[in-house]
Structures are given as C-alpha cells and as structure tokens.
C-alpha cells in the first residue's frame, strides 16, 4: 500500500506540472489580453498607452519568462497581483474559497444522501410504480440545467414568499444561512443526485443478481441485511468513483449557480476573471481547482483501495 501511495503522489506532481503548463499556454493563446479589454471599454486602442500598460503588467516579456515568474512566485507563496483590482491575488481568492467549498460540500452531501438511498430503493423495487417514479425524477435531474432550476427556485420564492435569497456573508439567522447555501446547493446537486441514483440503481441490480446474494437469502438473511450489508457494500464502489468525478465537474455547475444566486464564490469569480483576462487570478484559480480535483481523485483511489484490497495489490 505504501508503494502504491508514493507512486500515486509522484504521478500527482507530474500531472500538476503538466496542468500548470497547459493552463499558462492556453490562457495566452486565447485572443486578447487585459489591455485590449481595458481599451475596449474606452472605445479605442492607443498603441503607445497599450505598450506602456503591457510593460507595466509584464505582458511584453517572453512567455517562458512569464511562466517561470509565475511558478517561482507560486513556490514562494506569492500569487502575484490581480490586473483588475490591483490587489494581491491571494487576498482576492482566499475569502471566496470557503463560500464555494461550503456550496460544493453541501451539493455533494445532497447528492449522496438523496442519490444512494433512492438508487437502492429503486433497485430493490425494480419494475414497481415507485421505481418508475424515481427513474422519472432521476431523468429530470439529468435533463434540467442547474441555472434553469435555480431561476425556477428564485421565481417560486418571489411568487410564494415575496422574497428571495440574496447572498449575505453574515447571515443573521440559522434559517437565512441555510437558504443562502442549501437552496443553491440543491439546484446544483440535483443533477449529481440523479446521476448517483442511476449508478447506484444499476450497480445494485447487478449485485442483486449475484450468486452470493442468493446464498445469503438462502441462509435466511433478512431483506434489509441482504440489501444493505451484502449488496450495497459492493455496489457502492462505482458510486464513489462517480461522486469523485462529480466533485470535479461540480465547478461547471457552480459557475452558473453562483451567477444565478449571486454568490461570490470562486466559480463565478473565475468566469469574471476570464472575461477580463486577469491572468494572475485565472491561472492561480484554475491551478487551485486542478489541485482539488487531483487530490479528490487521489482520495477516491485510496478509498477504492481501502474498500477493495484487490486494487491495491493488483495494481
């Protein structure tokens, strides 16, 4: 297991290095930079002023020097300065991370706590009316975009209660805090819940047909014991993988959800920074997201290995 962990850690570092190069190069390949956008607002491009500004921001330097400057700073904990706000990038990014983390955590929690039990119920009652109803719910979860669902929730909130949740960093009541995070978390987590439910259902159905399940039933084990002790434990492996992948994909859903619910998290901030070509913010944020995804993958693999010993020894 130790060798396995060391090998995975090494691969993580190689992956992150590759990602850093790709992020950096892709960002510079995208047409236009902050200077173009600043002058876009002015309605013209003054070549002399443009050159001055590019020099001021270091954009006139060769791309390799710019990359080394960024990576060198990153290794020393210096993320540079936002081109737009002229504040340290770390100061801009740090306060937004907990907001998105809470939202993503709640969305995943919602996804797992709704998706897994409903998936099991659906599988156990295969072919019943309940199964069909749950399958319709899961299908709608996969079909409805989170921004649409979010807007629907907001409109319903305004029509029914005459108010709507607008992000407040200092909620006064527990209920306010819950609406701030729980409602958008549900909007974005609904898709993941639906996916988790489908995977759990199909995985459970496969397991429930296995010989050892039949044996367990023949031994007189209760239905609950068969379903939850024998079947679910084995069926949950692909579900864990899916939840891990969903954690990585969640950022896409969060971009629109944070915009619709006006939540100042990193997902929305990333899009705004991209719009301005605010390189220091974009490259550091994407790098941060890459680290999160790589670490989540690592954790999923470790969990996998912990649950199924064949993986750690067979690899």
């Amino acid at each position, binding site marked *: 297991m130790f060798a396995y962990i060391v090998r995975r850690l090494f691969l993580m570092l190689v992956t992150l290095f590759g990602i850093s190069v790709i992020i950096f190069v892709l960002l510079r390949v995208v*047409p*236009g*930079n902050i200077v*173009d*956008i*600043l*002058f*876009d*607002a*002015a*309605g*013209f*491009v*003054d070549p002399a*002023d443009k050159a*001055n*500004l590019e020099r*001021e921001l270091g954009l006139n330097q060769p791309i390799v020097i710019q990359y080394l400057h960024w990576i060198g700073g990153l290794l020393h904990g210096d993320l540079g300065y*936002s081109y*737009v*706000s*002229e*504040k340290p990038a770390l100061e*801009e990014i740090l306060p937004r991370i907990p907001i998105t983390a809470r939202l993503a955590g709640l969305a995943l929690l919602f996804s797992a706590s709704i998706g897994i039990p409903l998936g099991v119920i659906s599988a156990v009652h295969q072919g019943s009316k309940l199964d069909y109803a749950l399958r319709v719910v899961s299908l709608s979860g996969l079909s409805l975009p989170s921004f649409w669902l979010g*807007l629907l929730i*907001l*409109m319903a*909130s*305004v029509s029914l209660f*005459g*108010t*709507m949740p*607008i992000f407040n960093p200092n909620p006064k009541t527990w209920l306010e805090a819950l609406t701030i995070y729980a409602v958008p978390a549900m909007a974005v987590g609904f898709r993941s819940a639906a996916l988790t439910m489908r995977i759990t259902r199909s995985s459970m159905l496969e397991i429930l047909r296995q010989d050892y399940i039949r044996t367990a039933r023949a031994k007189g084990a209760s239905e609950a014991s068969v379903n939850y002790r024998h079947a679910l434990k084995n069926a949950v492996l692909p579900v864990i993988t899916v939840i891990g992948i969903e954690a990585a994909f969640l950022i896409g859903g969060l971009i629109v959800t944070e*915009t*619709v*619910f*006006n939540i*100042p998290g990193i997902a*929305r*901030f990333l899009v*705004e920074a991209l*719009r*301005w*070509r605010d390189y220091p913010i974009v490259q550091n944020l994407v790098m941060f997201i890459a680290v999160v995804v790589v670490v989540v993958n690592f954790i999923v693999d470790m969990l996998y290995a912990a649950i199924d010993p064949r993986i750690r020894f067979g690899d």
Partner: protein
Amino acid sequence: MRSVQALAVAVLSVLTISDVSCAAEPKSGGIFRIYHRDSPGSASIHEGATYSVNIPFMPIFNNLVIFDQHIAQNSADTIRPELAESWAWSGDNKTLTFKLRKDVKWHDGKPFTAADVKCTFDMLMGKSQQKFRQNPRKSWYDQVDEITTNGDYEASFKLKRPQPALLSLLASGYSPVYPCHVSPAEMRTKPVGTGPFKFVEFKANESIKLTKNPDYFKKGLPYLDGIEFTIITNRSTAILGFVSGKFDMTFPTEVSIPLLKDVKSQDPKAVCMVEPNNVSTNIIINSSGPPFDNLDIRRALALALDRKAFIQIMFEGQGDIGGTMEPAPDGLWAMPKEMLEQIPGYGPDIEKNREEARKLMQKAGYGPDKHLQIKVSTRNIAVYRDPAIILIDQIKSIYIDAELDVVDTAQWFPKIARKDYSLGLNLTGNAVDEPDQSFYENYACGSERNYTNYCNKDIEKLFDQQSEETNIDKRKKLVWEIDKKLQEDVARPIIFHARTGTCWKPYVKNVTIMSNSSYNGYRYEDVWLDK
C-alpha cells in the same frame, strides 16, 4: 397597440413628475440599494468609458460645474456651480475663469484648492508627471492651451480658440476633480473625492459601498446614510431582486422595454421611466478596400435600411430615428424632421428607397444572379447581435448576402483597428449631448474613435466653425448641415437611437433620469427615502 403603449408611458411619466413635484419634506437616513449590472474594471471615472464606472462612483466626487441633477435635458442653461462658485468667459471667449469655493475638504481631510483643478486637467491633457492608465476623453481638452491658477481659489482654462462647448464638457459626470495628493493607482481602488458620499469598499463581483460624507460642503446634504450597489450580472436575478424588494432601484437605464412589462406586472407600484439615452446603433463601414470603397454600394446600403422595423422588432416602437445627434425633442441638436427626410434612406417610402438601392447595386455589378457576399461583424452581446441579424435580413433585399461574424469583446476594437472587417454593427454612446464631443470623437480625421477612418477636410472645417460659434441658433444650423452631410457621405449610417427603462420603488424620492445622456445624473446628494 402602439398608441396604447405610448399613452401608458406618457401617463407613467406624468405620474413620476408629479411624484417628484409633490414630494413631502425630505427625510434623512436609510441606505439606498441599487443592483449593479456588472463589475466595473476600476473606480476611476477618468480612466473609464462606461457608465458601469460612472454611476457608482459619481456620488464620491464634485465637478467644477454640473448639469442640474433634476432637469432631465442637459443643456448649457442647466449648468450649475459645484466646486466653482461662479465662472466667467473673457471678452475674447478664450479664457474661462472659475472662482472656487473655500469651504471644501477632500474626504481625507485635506483642503481642496485650485492646484487640484490644475493637476486634474493637466493629467487629462497628458501634461503632468502622473499618467492615467488610459485617458479616453483626452480629446475633450484639445483646445485648452493651459490651466493657470491665481491663488488657491481661482483657476483659468486658457484656450487656443473659443470653444463654448467646454463648459458643457466640464459639467459631465465624466469630469470630476481629482485630488493632487492621491495617485491615479489609488484612485482606481480607493477613490478620494469631495462629494456627498465617501468610498467605503469595492469588492469585485460583489458590491460597492458608499457612506454619507458628514462634512459635505452643502449643509444638510446628503439625505441618505449611504448607497450600496450589489453586483448582479444575471439580469433575471437582478430584476427578481428588485421586484422582491431587495433593491430600491434598478441599475439606471438597464431595463429593456420587454422587461419593463414584467416589472410592472410583478410590482405594479414601481415607478418606471423610459428615456432615450443618447446611444445610437450604427453601421461602421470599412471603405478602405473592396467592396465598400465603392460609394454606390455604400449609398445602396444606406438606402436599404428600414429603421422603423428595427425599432418595432427590438423595442416595440420605443426608439427614435435621427442622425448623429440625438433626435428631438430630448436631443438639443437634432435636425428638423423635414431636413432629415431629405437624406437618402430616411424617406418614408422604404420600397422606393430599396428600388433605388438595387439600381445602385446593379451599377456596381451585382444583381439577382450575382449577390455580394460579405460578413457583418459585431460583438457577442445581445444589443449588438440582435440588430446585426435584422440588418443581414434587410440587406438581402438589395442583393447582399451577409453572414454574421460574432467577435469576442476582447477582440472587437483590435479587429476594427486592423480594418479586419467589411461591415460592423456598432453602438456609440455620447457622454454629453454636444456636437464637439460627437463630431471630434467619431468623425474627425485621425481620431482614435473614428473607426472607419472617415476623413473629409471640408466637413472638418465646419466642425471648427460650429465649435467656435457662440450664437446658439447659428451653431445649430451648422450642426444640422454637418449631420446631414455625414449621413449623405454614409460615414457611419445611424440606424436608430434606443430608449431604455429605469424603475424604482415609490418611496424613493428625487431621482431624475437624464433624457439626453446616460452619464451625467448620478450625484444623488438630495435623493431621499420616504420610509
């Protein structure tokens, strides 16, 4: 149906006016909550060229003079003193002298003096050590030779030649006086002004907060304890926020005509105003090469436009047809209707115009069997894309097959500057309803915002002639003549001038939306909340 809509808007306007005039004694207190449509790039008005910067930060500052904040139509007659107590032109109309107030302090406690006036305008003219990152309105001060001070409380603008328009340019929301002791970089992040509200914080993509300046030189003002802008980029969420009472006002002039109906149906008590905003939707033509180096094809294009159809489709009839200057009655410098209709393409018989256009196209070698293939380039924003699509549809009738070329915002101006386009669908906002601003910025030879490189030395002489003219009636006639020639030359065909809406809750008092500018009415020093 259109007349019903017009009547509804008229009634609404009257109700709003009576709401202001019948206002009770102002009350102090309360935070005025507005949503902001996007996150501005910086807090520095002088470096900005969009009202995304101008609206939230104008309450921090004062100008030497300002357009009366409660007269919707900006004009030379509505200019009021702010940091200047009075002003006077010299006998030769080449020196404008301001006597300054002595009781004004910057928000950090330092006294305001004539040196601040000099260093602000020296910086705008590019004559000081400190430089702006970008200086979009430098051309406004082309005729200013130097700024001189006489002691701490007198400043004079010495001109190369008379330019009566200078006072109007100084009265724009884009002309605040900056402090000498604060660097341009600090003004981008923590602006210091003398105005009714002090800067508290600007969190990108979140909010902008201003608080009451208790030492404001106008005693008893402002009434509000503060102003908070919540940045909401999603328009549906923002409008829902207004309807549900999270905001007291929408972002000014950001409510489109179809959305206005939604707001009124969900919040019937909301006060909504529809005003023109001196933004024209126009076509920029690359005449530096084929096919539009051919004047016949340019003229055919101008003749093919059905302006009423644009306005009907996009704004349910709420728009105006005019030339470069904003149409009357809100625009001060608009050509009379009978003069406008003499311009090719402005006549009411669209089919006749198009028949003429087809003849010109045939003369240029195109016809039913040989269509001209082009691209119509525009920015990837709905207010640009939608009219571009209508334009493509309309020019089909004169043998032009066009394809929409949507350009990323970051690439738009570099692309235009490279002349890498045939036709472009463009929007031009005028900061002041003033010919000097519009003509020199958009049509003068070599001007950076003259995207089409239009250059006509004869018209340029007329630009100067009208600019120097102090008799307003004579000046108007010159302006009409210039505007007519610009349209006849197909310099930048104007399609329409849009109107947009602003809504606020009935308890918000003393808000006036300007009718010939989107940039000059946001000081908010005597706005108050009746709740």
